[in-house]
C-alpha cells in the first residue's frame, strides 16, 4: 500500500463522492485539475450520450441489429479513459464500454462500423454490435461470455510485471460478472501475483433484469476485494471526479508496483439492457426517473457552472458540433460498405489450413 500519497480509503461504508448533486465540491482536500481537462470530461460525456442516441436511432432504422445503451455510465467510463495512459496501458473492456472506447480516442466511425459490420471496422465485421477491439490502443477485443476476459487481463498484467514494464491493465465489467467463476479465478491470481491490474466494476444494479440483491449477498462489490488480498474502493460512479480521482490513485499504485485493486463504480443504466430488452417488465418507471434526476452530465454541468467553465451557448455549440461529427461518422461507417462474404474464411489461423481453403470454394 502507498501510505503517504494515498488519499482514498478502501472499504468505505458509503460510496466516495467528490461533487454533490448541486455541483458543490465535497472533498476535504483542495482540488486542482486543469480547466481544459474538466471541460474535456463534459465534452466526452456528452459525445457518448449523443453516440448512444445515434446508435439507438440507427437500430430503429434497421441499420444496426443490436445496441447496448451506455447512458448513465458516462461519468464512470470517461473518468476511466482519462485515468489511464491511452495507447500505453492495456484495457480489457466489456460490451457496454462504448463511452470508454470513444473517450480513449477511437474514431466514432470505427465504433459505428463495428456495429454495422462494415469495412471501416478494424475487427473486420466479425462480431455482433458492441463487441469492439482495437490494437491501436491495446484494447482487447470483447468476447460475449461474461467475465471471460478477466483471466486474460491478469495474464497480461503478470507479463507486464515479469518484463518490468510500467504499463497497467484495466479490466472492466459489470456486477453480474462477479458471480462467474472466472472472476474469482482471475482476481485471485492477480492478488497472488501482485499484478499491476485494476479491476473496475461498473455496478449498475441490474444484470439484464436480475437486480443486485439476487446477484450477491455481499454489501457491495468492493467488499469482495478482501478475499483477494487487495483494496476495494466503493465509488459514486455518477460522479466523474470521484471516479477519476480514485481510479487515478489505484492505477498509480499499480504502476508503482504495489499490486492490484478493485474499484466499484456505482452507476445506473438509464436504458434497457439492450435493444432486445423491455425494462418496463422488471423495474418501475419511477426508479428510472429518480436516477435520471441524478444524471452525471447534469451534475458535472452544475460543477462547471460553479467554476465558470460552462455556459448555455457553449453547451449548445458543443452539442451541435458533436452531433454533426457523429452524423458524419455514421455516414462514413455505412459508406465503407459491408464486409465481403469471403472474409468469413480469414483469420481463423495465421495461415489457412487446407480444409478451410477447400470450404471457401463451397461459398
Amino acid at each position, binding site marked *: 500500500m502507498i501510505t503517504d500519497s494515498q488519499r482514498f480509503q478502501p472499504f468505505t461504508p458509503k460510496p466516495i463522492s467528490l461533487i454533490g448533486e448541486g455541483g458543490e465540491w465535497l472533498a476535504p482536500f483542495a482540488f486542482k485539475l486543469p480547466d481544459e481537462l474538466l471541460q474535456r470530461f463534459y465534452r466526452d460525456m456528452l459525445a457518448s450520450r449523443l453516440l448512444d442516441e445515434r446508435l439507438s*436511432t440507427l*437500430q*430503429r*432504422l*434497421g*441499420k444496426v*441489429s*443490436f445496441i447496448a445503451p451506455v447512458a448513465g455510465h458516462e461519468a464512470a467510463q470517461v473518468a476511466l479513459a482519462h485515468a489511464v495512459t491511452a495507447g500505453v496501458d492495456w484495457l480489457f473492456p466489456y460490451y457496454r464500454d462504448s463511452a470508454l472506447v470513444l473517450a480513449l480516442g477511437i474514431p466514432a466511425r470505427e465504433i459505428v462500423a463495428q456495429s*454495422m*459490420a*462494415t469495412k471501416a471496422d478494424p475487427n473486420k465485421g466479425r462480431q455482433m454490435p458492441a463487441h469492439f477491439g482495437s490494437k491501436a490502443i491495446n484494447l482487447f477485443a470483447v468476447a460475449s461470455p461474461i467475465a471471460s476476459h478477466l483471466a486474460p487481463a491478469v495474464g497480461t498484467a503478470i507479463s507486464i510485471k515479469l518484463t518490468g514494464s510500467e504499463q497497467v491493465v484495466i479490466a472492466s465489467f459489470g456486477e453480474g460478472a462477479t458471480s462467474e467463476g472466472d472472476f474469482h479465478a482471475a482476481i485471485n491470481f492477480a492478488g497472488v501475483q501482485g499484478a499491476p491490474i485494476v479491476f473496475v466494476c461498473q455496478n449498475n444494479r441490474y444484470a439484464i433484469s436480475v437486480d443486485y440483491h439476487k446477484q450477491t449477498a455481499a454489501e457491495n462489490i468492493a467488499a469482495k476485494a478482501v478475499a483477494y488480498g487487495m483494496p476495494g474502493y466503493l465509488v459514486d460512479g455518477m460522479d466523474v471526479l470521484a471516479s477519476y480521482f480514485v481510479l487515478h490513485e489505484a492505477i498509480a499504485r499499480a504502476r508503482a508496483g504495489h499490486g492490484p485493486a478493485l474499484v466499484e463504480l456505482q452507476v445506473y443504466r438509464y436504458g*434497457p439492457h439492450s*435493444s*432486445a*430488452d*423491455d425494462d418496463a417488465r422488471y423495474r418501475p418507471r419511477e426508479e428510472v426517473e429518480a436516477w435520471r434526476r441524478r444524471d452525471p452530465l447534469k451534475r458535472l454541468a452544475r460543477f462547471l457552472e460553479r467554476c465558470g467553465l460552462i455556459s448555455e451557448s457553449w453547451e449548445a455549440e458543443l452539442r451541435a458540433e458533436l452531433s454533426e461529427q457523429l452524423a458524419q461518422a455514421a*455516414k462514413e461507417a*455505412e*459508406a465503407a460498405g*459491408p464486409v465481403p462474404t469471403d472474409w468469413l474464411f480469414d483469420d481463423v489461423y495465421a495461415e489457412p489450413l487446407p480444409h478451410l481453403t477447400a470450404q471457401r470454394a463451397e461459398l
Partner: protein
Amino acid sequence: MMKEVLLPELAESVVEGEIVKWLVAEGEAVQADQPLVEVMTDKVTVELPSPYAGVLRQQLVKEGQVVAVQAPIALIEEAASAEPEEPDEGESLSLFKPSADDDAVPTVQVRRAAKVALPPQATGVHRVLAVPAARKLARELGVELAQVRGSGPHGRIRVEDIRAFSQALPVAQAPSVHAEREERLPLRGLRRVIAKAMLASHQQTVRTLHVDEADVSGLVALRGKLKPLAEAQGVKLTYLPLIMKAVVVALRAYPILNASLDEAAGEIVIKRYYNLGVAVATEAGLVVPVIKDVDQKGILALAQELSALADKARDGKLAPEDIKGGSFSITNVGSLGGLFSFPIINVPEAAILGVHTIKKRPVVMPDDSIAAREMLYLSLSFDHRLIDGAEAANFTNHLISLLETPEALLL
C-alpha cells in the same frame, strides 16, 4: 420522389409489429430522424424515426394493425431540397434487409440411374449388394451387376467376383474385315435367358460326367405291349414316362442326386419330393418344364402331362410355375441322334440325366455269343460339390438295373 418506409427488424427473432400510434399525420411535413410512428413488438415498444425528410403522403397501415418485418408502412414524398441523398438509390443500406441479389433457391437435379432390365428369373431381386470398389470395377468393365453372383454374405458382390466374372466373359470381338459376310442377330428373349442360365450353371457347379449303357431290350418289348393299350385311351406312350419312374426309384435309393446346395446357409437340401424337369426343344430354344410329384402319378398320367407340357412349351405358353420347383432333370436328345453327351445341370439341382437313342447294337452276351440288342446310352452330369463319383455310379447302376428289368418297377 416517393420513398417507402419499411418496418425494420427491431430485435432478434421479432417477425412482426403492431402499429400503435401515428405521430405524424398524412400530409404533414416530417424531418429525418423525427419520431414517425409508435410500434409494439412482443419484446419492445419503440418510436420509429423517419428515415427521410419530406411530407408523409400515406400511412399504409392503420393503428392497431399488425404487419410483418420489412413490410411497407408509409410513403414519404422526399423534399426536393432535402439533404443530398446517399448514393443508394432510395434503398437504405440496411445490411439486414434482403437485397435484390440474394441467391435464388437453386433447383436440385436428381440423377436417376437408368433402370436396368432384369431377366425374368431375376424378378424379386430389388437391389444388388456390392462393395463400392466392385461397383466401380463393374462400371469400368461394363459388367452388369445383376449378372454377377456375389460370393459375400447375402450375395454381396466383391471385387474378386467381378474379376472372375469378367474373365469368364468372351473377349469382345474386334469388328471384322469381313463384315459384309457376317450376319448379326441381337441376343434377345429366350436365347438371352438361356445364354445367361447356361453360363451361370457352368460357373456355379462342378459339372462331372458319368456315362454308361443299358440293355433295354426288355423295356422295348414292354413298351411295345403297352403302346396300343395307351392309344386305346387316347394317350401317346413314349419311353420317357417309364424312364422317369425308374429314375424316381433310383433317386429314392440315392437321395443325394435329388438335392441342392444352399450356399448362403451353408447347407445341402435333400428333397423328399420328386419333381422331374424334362427338357423340351422349341423353336425359340430349349426349355425344361417340370412334372411335379412323379412318384405319385401313373404312367398314363405322366404321358398325358408330358404331352400337354410339351405342347405348351412349343406354343410358348409355359407359366413360371411350370418351370420351377424341379429336383432332378432329364434331357432327351435321343430323337436327334448322338452317342452320349455332357448335359448342363439345371441349377439349383444337383444332377441331370441325358437319355439318348435306343439303337440296336451287336453285344457280347454272357455265353460269348453276339446278339443284336436294343442299347441305350445314359449320360449323367452331376455337381461334384455334392455328389461323388461313387454315388453317381451307384445311382446309375441302380437305374440301369431297373431299365433292364422293368418288371421290377411293379415292386
